[in-house]
Structures are given as structure tokens and as C-alpha cells.
């Protein structure tokens, strides 16, 4: 993970996920998907996320909307990290990411590119940008668990 300590690399990761966000198109026939729209009152971020969870496995995850660099890239990285994983594995990733954001202990190996946001606390008003997509997935997982 040495390269992920290089600010230049981290900047490139963020800008790449902002310019070319992964899984960035909503599916029209969303009958198999749980979906949620997260819009922020205090900033522009307004994203919709869809997730198809089958037998506790995240088979597909998608998002779209208008969002800032940090919100878009952090959500894009999240989709890459959790697709194909079980909801328990995804939960562990989310918990570690939240720990990182709120300056607690975390396992950086689980977070891969998401560690680009390890310093977002330096401008705490941007924490909501870095977590909006992650909160969306958390709510969808909770919804899935409740429905089980």
C-alpha cells in the first residue's frame, strides 16, 4: 500500500473516480433493487443509490445524481469495494471507513482506495460529502435486513 501514501496518487484516484465514476447509471427496471435518494439540505449533493442483494450478496450496486468531487468519488470507490461481497463483509468495510473518517482505529487494508479520504476531518464540513454514499448503502443494508 506504499503508493497510497503518495498525495499525487491519491489525488489521481479521487479525480479518476470523479471524472469516470464506476457503476454510475441507474437501472430502469429496478424491481430487484432496493433504492434510496439522499439529498443534502446544506449542500448540493443529491444522489440516488440502487442495490441488488441476493442471498446476502451484493450482486449489483449503482448510483447517480449531482454531487461534489468528494461525494462522487467516495461513493464510486464504495461501489467498487462492495460489489460481489456479502452484506457482512460490506458492513465491516463501512464500519472501518466510518472509523477512519471519525479518526478512530481502522484496518486500511479493507479500505483500499477509500483511504484517500482519511484526512477529510481537516475540514469537518466535508465529512457529509465523504459519507453520503456510505450512509446510503448502510440504510439499504438495514432495509434488506429488516425485510428478511
Amino acid at each position, binding site marked *: 500500500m506504499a503508493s497510497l501514501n503518495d498525495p499525487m496518487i*491519491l*489525488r489521481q484516484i479521487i479525480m479518476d473516480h470523479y471524472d469516470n465514476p464506476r457503476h454510475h447509471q441507474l437501472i430502469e427496471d429496478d424491481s430487484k433493487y432496493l433504492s434510496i435518494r439522499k439529498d443534502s439540505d446544506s*449542500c448540493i449533493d443529491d444522489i440516488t443509490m440502487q442495490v441488488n442483494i441476493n442471498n446476502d450478496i451484493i450482486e449489483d450496486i449503482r448510483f447517480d445524481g*449531482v454531487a*461534489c468531487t468528494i461525494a462522487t468519488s467516495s461513493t464510486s470507490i464504495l461501489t467498487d469495494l462492495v460489489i460481489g461481497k456479502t452484506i457482512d463483509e460490506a458492513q465491516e468495510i463501512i464500519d472501518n471507513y466510518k472509523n477512519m473518517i471519525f479518526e478512530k482505529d481502522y484496518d486500511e487494508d479493507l479500505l483500499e482506495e477509500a483511504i484517500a479520504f482519511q484526512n*477529510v476531518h481537516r475540514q469537518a*464540513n466535508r465529512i457529509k460529502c465523504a459519507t453520503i454514499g456510505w450512509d446510503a448503502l448502510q440504510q439499504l443494508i438495514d432495509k434488506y435486513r429488516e425485510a428478511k
Partner: protein
Amino acid sequence: MFDVYETRKKYPILNGIKMEGHNLVYMDSGATALKPQCVIDKVVEYYSEYSTNTHRGDYPLAHRADEEYEKVRKIVKEFINCNDENEIVYTYGTTHSINVLAHGIKHMLKKGDVVLISEFEHASNVLPWFRLKDEIGIEIEYVKLDEKHHLTPELFKESMHDGVKLVCLAHISNVLGQCLDIKEIAKITHDYNAIIAVDGAQSVPHIKVDVKDLDIDFLSFSAHKFGGPTGIGVLYGKYDLLNKLEAYNLGGGMNTRIECNTCYFIKEAPFKFEAGTPAIEATIGMGKAIQFIMDIGMDNIHEHIKKIRKHAIDRLQNELPEVIIYNPENEGAPLAFNVKGYEGARCQDIGSALATYGIAVRTGEHCAKLLPNLIGTKGSVRASLYLYNTIEDMDCLVDALKDIVAKEKENKGDALSWLL
């Protein structure tokens, strides 16, 4: 003459508080203005010397609270030059004032009546009227604007018709900053026998607002935007109209008699709108804040801001073609801009980058959520100025933007370097 450097000494936050290791360059006064020491002292004086309730106690300390509290109505009366201090309702701020008005005037409107607003209104001058549409079926119409998104009296006249019963406009837009010719607009409104309610949140702190000269029926504003405490504002209304409004909050302090058979009798305006224990210290602090800016002089404040704003615009236009300014010609305080490539949601990155230079700005939609229809971008950076900003602050903003743009050219995404 007004000396900005002497005035700055009176604001504790401008003397020693650092942001990101830099002296604070505060350009978010459109959201809330900084507080001078005299306002802080006045609030503390209430808590330290006579923190009793108002209109309640039969002892000398309570009498002092009453006196200090009611005295502020006279100060506001002088400030906005209304006929009578009883035309002044204390509210929690502009938003509350407009909600009190919207609720209170509901019984005077009927299905199909038109409330005329603009697309540059703040959410608080939009949503209360949208709700009246849902509740009683009034119609919402928007005034016509020219290609620069300005409202002229001529365009206003074209927007008026006999169906319009109420006109609700921001005197100065909180993003674009155009100062409307409210006097002429009020005259046209009254020619149609309609009522005009002015959102003065951004105008009252910056220019002399004389409700008699402008001949407006209602005016709403907040104290915190001119250096008073938060949680206190004013709804002014011409007395007969004001007294016709129905009270929103019922409770103690606004009634005269309550009977078991559910009959109750309420006070006249302004007291019928002031149920419950008010924000006493904030009200008293508002009085001090008004005296403070009146001593400086509203014309001096306006001229000063115009001068420093022009300095920044001249420099930006000459030195930074990468910056798009949405409202260069408006004299009002907010300066709305974007860095090319950072329009829309990315404007927040410019806000965060400016913060690393100690500069406080606001980014986003600024609660004017209909505005993107007009200016074609969902988000912008807003540098909103007040009497304590200096030419040096403006240079700091321009130099920081130049620095950010230059670094961004070298490394895409450099505006995020604070994060890395």
C-alpha cells in the same frame, strides 16, 4: 468618516482568532455577520445583572428587563422609520417573520388569488407561500426578469394584474445582490390594491430602509445579519394590516382573558404575536446592534462595501479570466462566482480550498433553490461582505484564487490538497 480599521478592533473574533493558521478573512456575512463587543457585552449584561422574565414580575429587577426589552421597539422604529413602535413584532428572525405573516394573512386570501414572488427568493420566502397554495389554493406566479436576471419596475408592472393580492420580494437577493427599486414596485403594487411584503434580510443590514418612504406594507429581517444575536428578528407591518393578521402561536403573554367555556381574548398587535417567554437577551442585543450600525451610518456601510467589492471585481476581471462572476454590476454585498471547471457541485472544492487560506465563504445554492434555473449553474461560491471587510481582505481572496487556479493548472485536483 468611517474608519474600517478602527471598527475592526471592536470585533473580538477579528482580533486573534485563526482559521487554518491564518488570520480570519470572513466573507460569509450573508449567512450571519460577526458580533461587535458592545453587543456581546449587552447580552452578558442581561444575564449578569437582570436576567428576569419580561411582563411578569412585580419587583424592580423585572422592571429593568421590561424597560430594556421594550426600549428596543423604539430603537427599531427609529431604524426603519415606521409610524409607531407597536408596528414592530419581535420574531425569531426573517424566516419566522415570513411564516407569521403567511399564517396570519391566510384568512385574507382565497382560492385563485395570486401571490407574486421571484425565482431569486430565499427558501423562506418561497415555501410558506407554496404551503398556502396547498392549503387554500392560492396561485404562485413569478415576476418577469430581464436577461441579466434583474427586475425593473417596468417588468414588475408587466407581471402585475388584478388577480395579484400579495407581492413578496427580497429587497436585495441573497445570491445575486440586486437591490430592487422597492419604492416604485410598492407604488405599482398599491395601484393594483395589492399588499407588498418585503424580505429585508439582506437589505436592512446594508442600506437605509425607510418603510414610510418606500411605503411597504410588511418588512421582515433578522438581527444576526447586522451583528445582533441569533434568534431574534422583526416583522414590521402597517398597524391596521398587522392587526388584521391572525396569531400563529397562542399562549402566555398574548391573551387578556381565558374562560372555562373555551372563550379567550387576545391582545392587539404586536403583543398578540408574541406568545411565550421571548429571546430577551437577544432582543436587547438587537437594540445595541442597531445603535452600533446607525452610529457608523448606513450610507457609510453601503459605500464602503461597494468600494471594496468593486476592487475585487476589477482585479478578478483583469487578472483571472478563469473566474466567472454572476453579478458584477449589482452593488449589493454578495459576490457570486465560480472558477471555470468548478461550476456546479464542485464549487465546494473551491470553498474548501479557500478555507485553507483562512477565507470563509459559502458554496452551494445558498437556500435560493429556484435560482439555478436562472443562472444556469447549480452551485456557486458566495463571498458576502460586511462593514468590517477591508481592501486587504479582497486582495487576499483574489490572490488565493489566483494561487488555487495556478496550482490546479499544474496538477488537476490540486484544490483538494488539504485532503491529501
